[in-house]
């Protein structure tokens, strides 16, 4: 093959490539499918050497038992409240800080920003003991605020919004708004936020997913009577005998909402990752 022909071939996939990818995606899907499979049958299927590969008809009966065993409605409500609040405040505070770091001048700006980037490396999970002591002293342990407050804003969020705001918001726009006599907060609200909306949307999706799936801290600080979905799932499994149809009906119920969100917004999430990582 001539060089020019080979250059034209650069980046063209072979048929086998699609095969490899298909296997990979099927592998990604399989555990979800397996969980639904067990949830839609009864525990008898698990004793068979070669289990049936099509769902049975017991899913709703098993799902109903989930609601009888743990306060699942309450858990769903709690998760929505926690993830919703955390998402709103994280996006708001991160955008505000991102705006300040990207476009406003103030003493110590660079130093403070470098500090934020460094804190990305501090594993906050290791602070659970003092945080637990503090929450107990405040009387917050067991309450949803104990899960919400530590996650009001993240270093990742601030970093992400700043990187985007630098390019997305021209100084001319800010200047024009100031000539019209806008206050800073109005400039943020009416000029900055609309300009950075795509990045804010991506941050919102990430924050919601992370918060929805958070486990260690809610497990430490919440009670069994007032859980989030993840804590409720764990409680579903605790016992001397594991009823897998019940437990996997629970995991299916907990996974369906986030899976739907993901399938609807997946394109944007992927686009967001691609955009975020390029700025190396």
């Amino acid at each position, binding site marked *: 093959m001539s060089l020019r022909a080979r250059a034209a071939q*650069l980046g063209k*996939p072979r048929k086998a490539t699609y095969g*490899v*990818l298909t296997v990979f995606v099927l*592998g*990604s*899907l399989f*555990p*979800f499918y*397996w*969980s639904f499979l067990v949830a839609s049958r009864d525990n008898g299927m*698990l004793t068979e*050497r070669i289990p049936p590969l099509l769902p049975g008809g017991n899913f709703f009966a098993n799902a109903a038992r989930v609601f009888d065993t743990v306060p699942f409605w309450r858990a769903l409500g709690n998760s929505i409240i926690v993830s919703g609040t955390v998402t709103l405040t994280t996006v708001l505070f991160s955008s*505000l*800080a991102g705006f*300040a770091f990207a*476009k*406003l*001048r*103030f003493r110590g700006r*660079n130093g403070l920003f470098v500090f934020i980037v460094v804190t990305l490396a501090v*594993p*906050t*999970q*290791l*602070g*659970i*003991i003092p*945080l637990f*002591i*503090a929450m107990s002293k405040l009387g917050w342990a067991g309450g949803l605020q104990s899960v919400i*407050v530590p996650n009001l*804003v993240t*270093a990742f969020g601030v970093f992400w919004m700043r990187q985007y705001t630098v390019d997305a918001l021209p*100084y001319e726009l800010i*200047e024009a708004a100031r000539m019209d006599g806008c206050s800073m907060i109005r400039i*943020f609200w009416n000029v900055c936020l609309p300009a950075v909306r795509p990045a804010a949307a991506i941050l919102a999706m990430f924050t919601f*997913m992370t918060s929805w*799936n958070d*486990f260690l801290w809610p497990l*430490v600080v919440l009670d069994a009577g007032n859980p989030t*979905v993840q804590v409720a*799932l*764990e409680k579903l*499994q*605790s*016992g001397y005998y594991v009823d897998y149809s019940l*437990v996997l009906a629970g*995991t299916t119920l907990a996974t369906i909402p*986030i899976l739907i969100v*993901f399938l609807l917004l*997946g*394109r944007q*999430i*992927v686009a967001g*990752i*691609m955009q*975020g*990582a390029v*700025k190396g």
Partner: protein
Amino acid sequence: MTVTDKTAPESRAMTRPHAATRPGLRDRLARWDVKVSPYLYVAPFFIVFAIVGMFPLLYTAYVSLFSWKAGDDNPDFIGLDNFKELFADTQFWHALENTVSIFLLSSVPQLIIAVLLAAVLTLRLRGATSWRVGILLPYAASLVALGIIFANLFGPRYGLVNGVLQTLGLSPVDWQANRFASHIAIAIMVNWRWTGYNALIVLAAMQAIPKELHEAALIDGAGTVRRFTHVTLPLLKPTLIFVTITSTIGGLQIFTEPKLFDAMPGSNNGGSTHQFQTVTLYLYQTAFENFNLGYASAIAWVLFLIIVVIALINYFVTGRLAGRRR
């Protein structure tokens, strides 16, 4: 990751060209607004970080110097005794071995597969976005749900994995009782969730590499493998370092997977002989099952230092490996 910094035109945004001539109340308010607002806007992060990042780290160090039981109002100051005890604690070292073993079994294959997968995804695929979404799917799953599902799949008696092994004529593996096998099962769980995510991050960086570089290498006679090792990899260095460091921090704190993998649900033992108890699981058990907060704080600090050291080692090793050519 570099911090892009554009400083030139910002002063324009900060001064009101027509304001200087008539100083009134309105004007002073506006100037005050310009001066104070930035601090107000960045304050939420620093307040939250002070409460949930800085304070815990320092307070953990403080608590670790006491024999501090939960609910204890007057704990005894014992200096470094918790640390002395910890260094002689075989269960801690055992847990650390488990953690490192699971971390290596997960992050090494995960990153290799992620880079190869990213290389496949850079090709001009039909339906490129759909493939990417499919690869990222596991990332959306809840860890708890996953832990439960995988514990079921790897179940020693009725698990699907053993069923398949037996159908193929192989002997079943006791994925929970056997130490090394349990590490492999947990690592598979971790890899299942994170490989696609890392592949996308690497892919994003790969797409930023100018096409001309590949064409030039091709004209110089470099084959696919050579182009990959001599063009792609060196340019991926910052991203590879980023991905390695984040998986180090996450991998060494692994908790949910081993907790849910236990045959005795709700247990924090990490198996009957602690065969897959990780350091964070041991920390959780010490603090919230045995209520020994002082000792658990010592574990937390030692783990924090270990994470820092391993992350630094990774930083240099990754830099070396990816940067051979420079």
